[in-house]
C-alpha cells in the first residue's frame, strides 16, 4: 500500500512550497528539489541514528520510484543525505522534478505515520518548521488512494 495518499501529497506539496519560500526569504537559492528531506534529516537522525534514517529514506525513495521512475537517478548517502540531483535535473523536466519531490516527501512522511502515527509525525514536522500552520490534517481518513 502506498503511503503517499492524496492528502499526504497535498501536505508534502505545502511543505515543499513553504520551505522554498523560507529559502528565498533567507536569500539562499534552493539548492535542490529536496530540501525538505534534508531539513528533516538531523531531527530524525537524533531519533533513529544515521543508519535508521538512511533505511527509512531508502524505503521512501524505492516507493517513490514506482510513481516517478526518473527518481532512480537519486541515491541515499551513508549519512542519510540525498545525492544524484544533478543527474536527475538532466533526466527529468521541471514538472517531473516537482512531482518527484512531492512523492518522495509524501512517502517519507507516510512511512513516519505508519511507524509512529500521525500525531507524532506532525510533532516532528512542527519541531522542524515551527511557524508552519497545520490545518486539521487527517491523512488516512476518507482517503483510500
Amino acid at each position, binding site marked *: 500500500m502506498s503511503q503517499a495518499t492524496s492528502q499526504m501529497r497535498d501536505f508534502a506539496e505545502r511543505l515543499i512550497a513553504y520551505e522554498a519560500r523560507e529559502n528565498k526569504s533567507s536569500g539562499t537559492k534552493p539548492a535542490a528539489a529536496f530540501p525538505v528531506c534534508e531539513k528533516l534529516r538531523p531531527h530524525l*537522525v*537524533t*531519533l*533513529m*541514528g544515521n*543508519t*535508521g534514517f538512511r533505511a527509512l529514506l531508502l524505503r521512501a525513495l524505492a516507493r517513490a520510484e514506482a510513481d516517478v521512475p526518473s527518481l532512480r537517478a537519486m541515491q541515499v548517502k551513508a549519512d542519510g543525505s540525498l545525492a544524484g540531483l544533478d543527474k536527475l535535473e538532466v533526466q527529468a523536466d521541471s514538472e517531473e522534478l516537482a512531482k518527484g519531490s512531492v512523492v518522495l516527501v509524501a512517502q517519507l512522511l507516510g512511512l513516519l505515520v505508519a511507524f509512529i*502515527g500521525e500525531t*507524532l509525525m506532525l510533532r516532528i514536522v512542527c*519541531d522542524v518548521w515551527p511557524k508552519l500552520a497545520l490545518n486539521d490534517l487527517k491523512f488516512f481518513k476518507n482517503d483510500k488512494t
Partner: protein
Amino acid sequence: MKKQNGAAKRKVLKKSVSPPAKVVIRKIPTGVRGLDDILGGGIPEFSFNIIAGTPGCGKTTLAHQIIFANATAQKPALYFTVLGEPAIKMLRYQQQYSFFDESRLGKAIRFINLADVVLEQDLNAVFNEITKQVTAISPGFVVVDSFRTVVRKAMSLASEIEMQSFIQRLAQFLASWEATTFLVGEYVPEEVRDNPVFTIADGLFWLSQVVERNSVVRKLQIMKVRGQESVPGLHTIRITDGGLQAFSRTLGLVGKKINPVRRRRRLSVGIPELDKMMGGGILEGDSLLVAGPSGTGKSALATQFIAEGLRHGEPAIMAIFEERPKGYTERAVSFGLNLKTPQEKGKLEVLYLRPLDLSVDETMQEILDAIIRVGAKRLVIDSLVGFEMALAPNFRADFRESLYRMIGALTGAGVTILSTVEVEDTFTALSFSHYTISFLTDDIIRLRYVEIDGQLRKVMVVIKMRGGNHSKDIREYVITNKGVVVISPRSTDYSGLTTGIPQRTGPRQAQKEEAAPEPKAKK
C-alpha cells in the same frame, strides 16, 4: 560546688547543640502503581539506577513510565537509545500505553540516538556525547537504553578498569548534574557479582519472567536501593494497557498504620439461632471459616451474613470464585434478600475473580481496592478452594502465606471476614478442611451431612470461637426460602453425629411422614 557547676554547664551545652540536620533525600514517584510502596516511598532523587532483566520483562516500559510520570519542560528527561530498540520503534510501541502523552515529547522528553557514536567511536566519545547533551539541556532524568549494548561494544576494546572508570565518571557526572539516572540492560543474575555497574549503582531493579507449566508470570525484585528500606522479595508485576503495575508481596500493608477497632461488637450473621450458638454473633474484625461439603449451604450462609450487614448499613464485598454474580444475586432474591439495590448504590460489590494465571497478590489487591472503594466492613471469600484454583500454578505455593497476610491486615482494620471452604464428608471423621486453617481463622463453623432415620440431613456445629464462649450443640438446619434456618435443638437421642452415621441412644420417636422433600430455596 565547683564540680556541680561544671556538670550543669556541660548539661546546658549538651542541650544547646542540636545534632546536624540530615540530608533529606526526595523520593520521586515512579508512576507505577504499587512500586512506590515496594521501594519504600519512591526513587531517591539524583540516584543512579539499573533496570535489569531478560528480554520481554518490561524494562523499557518501566523506564518510560517513570519518565512520563516525572519529566517536565523545566526538568526534562533525556532518553538515549543505543543499539537495542531504536527510538522510532519505542515511540511506535510505547504510545499504545495510556501513560504515553505525546505532548510531552520534544520539550519534556527528548530521545537521542547514540548508536552511531557507540558503533564508530570509543567510551570517551560516548561519555563526551552524553555530557554534551546533559550540559546543554540540564535534564532531571537520564535513561540509557540499552546500556548493556554500550558496554558490550566497549568491552571488546577497553579493559575492565577502563570500563569501571567510564561507569564511575558517568555516575558522578550525572549525579553532579542533579539527574536521576536509569541504565536499562539485559543482564542475567550471574552477572551481579562481577559487573562493576552493579557495584556503582544506587538502585537495582531486577525484572524476570517465571515460567511454570503453561503459565508465565513477571516478577520484580528491588535488589538494592541505597538509603531507604524497600520491601524485600519477589513481587508480581503485570503489564496492561496502562503500563506496569506492581503487586507488593506484602500487599502494601506492611508498615501502614491501622486503626484497630477499640471495642468490638458482636455482629449478627443473619441467622438468629446461629448467632446464639456463637455467643451472640461473630466478633467484629474476626475471620470466620465456614467448612462443609457441597450443597450444605455455605454460600447461602455467606449471603445472609452480607445481607445482614447491609441491613445495618455496613458496606460489603463478596469475592466469589465458583459461581457467577448473577447466580449469587438470584439466589439471594429466592431467600428474600436484595443484593441488587446495594450494588447499585455502591454499598456492595460482587467480585467475580476467575481469570487464568491470576497471581495471588493481584487478586488480593483487587479485593483490597474494592474494600477501600466501598468502605467495606464485611467481606466474603467464597470459596478458598475456588480462589486457589483461579491462581496460576506457581502462585499456589504462596497462597496461604498471602491469604494470611491479607486476612491479618483486614481483620486488624476491623473488617469482618467470612470464608467458605469445601470439605468432603468422610463419614468417619470431622475434618475442617485440607488447609491448615487454624492460623487463618478466629472462628470455625462446620456444616455436614448426617444420616438419620433414613434421611440425609444437615447439621452444624460451632467448632471454635476465639473471642469467647460458644455453644457446643450440634444443631440440625434446613435451607428454606429464608435461607439457612436452624430448626432443631440439640439431639440427645444420638451419639456419633460428627461421624455422619450416628447411633441411636434414645427411644425411637414417632416419625412424621414427610410427603415432600425438604423445602429448598426457589430456583
